């Protein structure tokens, strides 16, 4: 009898399963979620849904997928709108024969107009819903609509569908640091630090004769709270990344030779370490910024031998100066143009001097534009590539 009861209980437990069972081939894999604001102020969702049968060559061995790989794109674009994100999402689901599967989506595209109007409610939905990845990147699309992005002619792409193309751009920008892409996690964390402003990548749709022909990850989008307020150029983005200690590798071009002549020297920055410390003098707050840079020579149009200590010294000074100028420019833009704190000076002040922070917290918006920054850059050139001496043509 005891065994019988245990058997019944086991069956009962097992039978309560299955309720959330979904076979993998009943899912609509979303890769690429675009959010726009429609004319009537509705939230407008555009998704790129993959067709697995067309994506995997040779996957057609099983019954129903013999459609041929050349026939059409391996994805379909669907859109739906609603008064809020949840409603739009539900509407989208009603249009699909398979259930929406967001877990594979690692990029959220925001339309520029939508981003300017504030993205708080979207973030709320995404953080509540377990289906959304907190590691998804956020990109602001400019120069065209998301619709255009998703329907980019495949002849201009290396990858098989636009989402993958963008994904490649994001991982590849680590080589040049010309954009700074945040993911959902970082974005939300930044939002929660008072007075700190998030930035994320900007995706530019390149157009020719009014038709989208390509895409480019360029610069970054600056937010004030949850609203987009403007963009940073590529150089400024690099400087900001350096300040945030997030620069992994970048390129740098000087437009003067060692003796001031007109020539170009290119370097690759391989390491940048920044230390920021607040200074208080007569009630004025300023920040000391110390940057240590490591770089190697990539190309020079002149013929200086860097094995000479003198030349090396000179080049290092020039690099430091260049970086210093770039950082100062970026800080100027953030301070004076946008009046936002992307780098997180507030955070540093808060941690180093909590008492003072309490005093200035209320008036920070007024204090911040006039805060002084003392930038000091020290750069070291470690290598000069494969050749230690330049080629000397006869």
């Amino acid at each position, binding site marked *: 009898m005891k065994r019988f009861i245990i058997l019944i209980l086991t069956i009962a437990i097992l039978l309560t399963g299955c309720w959330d069972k979904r076979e993998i081939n009943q899912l609509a894999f979303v890769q690429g979620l675009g959010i726009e604001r429609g004319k009537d102020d509705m939230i407008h969702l555009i998704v790129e849904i993959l067709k697995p049968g067309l994506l995997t060559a040779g996957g057609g061995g*099983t019954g129903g997928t013999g459609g041929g790989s050349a026939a059409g794109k391996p994805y379909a674009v669907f859109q739906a709108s609603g008064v809020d994100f949840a409603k739009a999402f539900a509407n989208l689901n009603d249009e699909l024969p398979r259930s929406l599967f967001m877990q594979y989506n690692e990029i959220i595209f925001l339309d520029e107009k939508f981003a300017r109007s504030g993205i708080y409610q979207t973030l709320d939905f995404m953080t509540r819903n377990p289906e959304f990845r907190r590691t998804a990147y956020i990109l602001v699309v400019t120069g065209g609509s998301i619709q255009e992005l998703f329907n980019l002619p495949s002849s201009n792409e290396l990858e098989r569908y636009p989402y993958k193309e963008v994904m490649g751009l994001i991982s590849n920008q680590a080589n040049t640091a010309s954009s700074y892409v945040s993911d959902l996690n970082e974005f939300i964390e930044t939002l929660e630090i008072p007075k700190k402003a998030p930035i994320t990548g900007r995706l530019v749709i390149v157009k020719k004769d009014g038709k989208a022909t390509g895409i480019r990850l360029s610069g970054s989008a600056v937010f004030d709270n949850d609203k987009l307020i403007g963009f940073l150029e590529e150089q400024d983005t690099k400087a900001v990344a350096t300040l945030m200690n997030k620069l992994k590798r970048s390129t740098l071009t000087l437009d003067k030779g060692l003796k001031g002549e007109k020539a170009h020297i290119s370097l690759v920055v391989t390491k940048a370490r920044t230390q920021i410390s607040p200074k208080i003098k007569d009630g004025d707050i300023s920040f000391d910024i110390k940057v240590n840079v490591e770089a190697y020579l990539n190309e020079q149009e002149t013929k200086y031998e860097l094995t000479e200590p003198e030349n090396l010294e000179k080049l290092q000074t020039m690099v430091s100066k260049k970086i210093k100028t770039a950082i100062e420019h970026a800080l100027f833009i953030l301070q004076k143009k946008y009046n936002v704190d992307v780098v997180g000076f507030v955070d540093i002040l808060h941690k180093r001097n909590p008492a003072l922070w309490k005093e200035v917290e209320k008036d920070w918006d007024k204090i911040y534009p006039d805060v002084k920054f003392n930038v000091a850059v020290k750069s070291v050139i470690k290598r000069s590539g494969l050749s230690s001496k330049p080629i000397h043509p006869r």
Partner: protein
Amino acid sequence: MPHKLPDPQYVKENYQYMTLSKELEENIYIFQVLLKGNNDMVFRQISIGDKKVKAFLVYVDGMVDKLLITRNILEPIMIETRKLNKIIYTNDQLFNYINEYFITTSEVNVKDKIGDIIDDLLSGETILLIDGVEKALIISTKGWEGRNIAESTTESYVRGPKEAFVETLRINTSMLRRRIKHPDFVIENMKIGKYSKTDVSIAYIKSIAEDKVVQEVKKRLKKVQIDGVIDSGYLEEFIEDNPFSPFPQIAHSEKPDKVTAEILEGKVAILVDGSPFALMVPAVFVQFFQAAEDYYERYFLSSALRILRIAAMFIALLFPSIYIAETTFHQEMIPTQLAISIAAQREGVPFPALLEALFMEITFEILREAGIRLPMQVGQAVSIVGGLVVGQAAVQAGLVSPAMVIVVAMTGIASFSIPAYNVAITFRLLRFIIMIAAGTLGFFGIIMVVMMILAHMASLESFGVPYLAPMAPSKTQELSDVLIRIPWWAKILRPRTIQRKNIVRQEDTRG
């Protein structure tokens, strides 16, 4: 004067308590009553010495060495005893003379209980009955055709001793004795089986094996009251601690080298006549993952292979379940590209992943079973049919997805890499339970069943030794022979989970 012979019915019922009588006629009559109708019984009547004393030689044809009987028994007592003519003797004296001077085999016993004599007769001894003597000579003439010692077919090594046990108990014990030449090595005998009267030997080293375990083994074996013991597997079921567990709690092997190694660690081996598989107690779980070869190969390689085997165990147990759970509940855990490719393969597959997996796994099990039972020539045909039809055709017909074929194949191969067949079977069975749990509850189900299995394993014991030792209860020092194997010169102590009597294996010669 005709002697009154006893009633046949009475003889049949009470022969075990009867002793021989002085009358040869009566003795032969009793034997004939008991063994009537057996045409392999040989009753050879002879006359001994110059007085022509009547005698009977009784043996079972086919179980004795006939050459031995002719040369060492019949020749001396029929020809040589004629030389006794100068001496005056009684029949009893004649019996002693024959025992002491004439019979030239190595082992002769004197017995008078009819029950014992019948037992010896039926196990291949030759009985000599002499008129007027109340005793019988039991002459050891065992000799029958058995299998030669050959290479093991179930446990094969690349490196290490190749010989395996055979069906003859004496040969098997000799193989052990040859490997342990110490007076403390004990081989005790007992007979089990009301009809089969099978010889069972218990082998251990007196100064190492835990006395309690030896006593327990004897106690449990004595309790067995079965009619016949055909294989050591019979006894295994009688003496294991938890007969309702799917896990084997007694190890077996047909390799004398492996059994010797276990005996040296303090275990007790049980050998059964007629079975080439020796049982070894107590057993712990990890030992089923240790091939004897681990100890013969260099320890780097052995350690790597052990880790590989543990990985294979997890694959054999969990791989299909994880596949089912991931494709039906936790798709986000699959790498995107792989998920897309699985989704593409599954388009057009009519069954849910669970049914698909069960279908394939059961087909695979049927194929494997068919392959084991069939003669080798036909077996090949089966594997072709299995490989082609089940693999290729099922995919092409859209019954299963190619990924599932890979999962099932991986699982099958992984389960073959577990050295002990009996544990591999356990895992094969448990796999199905976990698969059903995975198909209904996802990872939650997998974890639930695995926890239940673990709890069960932790509750098992084999002759007083916890089944999961030395992992749980944890004996840090002995873990050096679980996942990895440390070199021989570093194994200073014997495993203390098995015995605590004599733990020093060797002197520390390396400092």
